[in-house]
């Protein structure tokens, strides 16, 4: 694919369908970048709704990100898993679970869990904050790098579910009341919510907002 004329499609009255990638022409757009009255509302090819940019992208991403930040606190404070051995309950938070793995000599698995349940959510939340900051303050430099950050966040998001899946397996398998019992703790709900909220936040962020500021004053 070759560059047509170094301008965005929207500035030339062309609009890409989010669903099927079909290019349509728009005569004019409202201030919120939706096609103005009298122009197309639905894609002629796939019949999906047409938007020049994802609707309310900045506000939605910011709201979802704030909720994720708040829920990240209970997710780390409360126990995510309660292991009862011979009647003695032993609560584990995300961090203490990783420490237990390190003490057990299982360094590779501990690293894996650390990356999936500590590093990935943090990178995602910080990365999205930087992206929102860049849009708000109209950064004009390193736009390519920021788009790479966006792609990384979108790719990496789902892998934090690792801890939740592991717990669901342990809970169902270790349930003989005689010796040992594993229960999921209150942090599991909070952590699952953090994962879903950050995934939704990444989905509602439109990286084209970064590029729209380029050269526009």
């Amino acid at each position, binding site marked *: 694919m070759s560059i047509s004329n170094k301008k965005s499609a929207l500035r030339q009255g062309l609009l890409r369908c989010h669903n099927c990638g079909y290019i349509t022409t728009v005569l004019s757009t409202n201030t919120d970048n939706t096609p103005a009255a009298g122009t197309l509302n639905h894609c002629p090819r796939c019949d999906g709704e047409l938007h020049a940019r994802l609707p309310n992208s900045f506000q939605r991403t910011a709201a979802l990100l704030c909720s994720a930040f708040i829920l990240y606190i209970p997710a780390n404070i409360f126990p995510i898993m309660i292991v009862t051995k011979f009647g003695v309950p032993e609560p584990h938070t995300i961090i203490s679970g990783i420490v237990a793995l390190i003490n057990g000599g299982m360094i590779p*698995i501990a690293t894996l869990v650390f990356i999936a349940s500590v590093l990935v959510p943090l990178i995602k939340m910080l990365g999205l904050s930087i992206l929102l900051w860049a849009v708000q303050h109209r950064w004009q430099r390193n736009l390519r790098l920021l788009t790479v950050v966006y792609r990384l966040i979108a790719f990496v998001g789902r892998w934090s579910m690792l801890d939740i899946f*592991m717990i669901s397996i342990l809970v169902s398998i270790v349930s003989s009341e005689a010796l040992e019992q594993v229960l999921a703790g209150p942090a599991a709900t909070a952590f699952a919510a953090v994962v879903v909220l950050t995934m939704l936040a990444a989905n509602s962020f439109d990286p084209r907002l970064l590029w729209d500021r380029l050269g526009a004053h």
Partner: protein
Amino acid sequence: MHNNSMKPLAYEACPQCDLLLNAEAIAVGIKAHCPRCGCLLYRPRHYSIERSFALSLTGLILFIPVNLLPLVGIVVLDNAQDASLWSGVASLYEEGLWGVAALVFLASLFFPFLKIMLSLLISGHLYFRKTHRHLSIWMRTLQHLDEWAMLEVYTLGIIVACVKLASRTELKFGFGLAAFIALLLVIVMLSSSLDEHLFWRRIDALNKSARKKT
């Protein structure tokens, strides 16, 4: 305006930076990247419709043993205990964590199933050149649920759980796990063989020929 926009334009736009590009035919085996932001624009596939059809049919068959057979089991005092996809959801639900239970159910059972069913319906219709009024809706749904089917993440969850258990008890692996890994491979191959550009073009052609007939 309407008539004009129905005619396909010889342009493409980058989905991530909206740079206007001249549409070009891309050969199989070549990846087209956006020259400005580096986004992967298009990667054509060999026999995309045929492969998607075959793979989704395989996936649908594999779904039966994956649902019915246990994945892993342990033996405690001659007392065998198993975990399957369903039992994990059920234990979380019984414990009162219905939100987590619902999420695990959706990500490990419902969305993978929906993904396979939709792929089968769409590629089947395209393969036999049959049109259906819901083809576009199916395709749009398939594109949106792609990242919510998380079997590969679940696999890592199984591995970590097994490592945690292996230090204390003896593990048993059943046919359920083999079927699960096969299903995982099928779904990963399905994602990579599905050529969205080609699918949309073919859906469009089918819809247009259906419109002409009526």
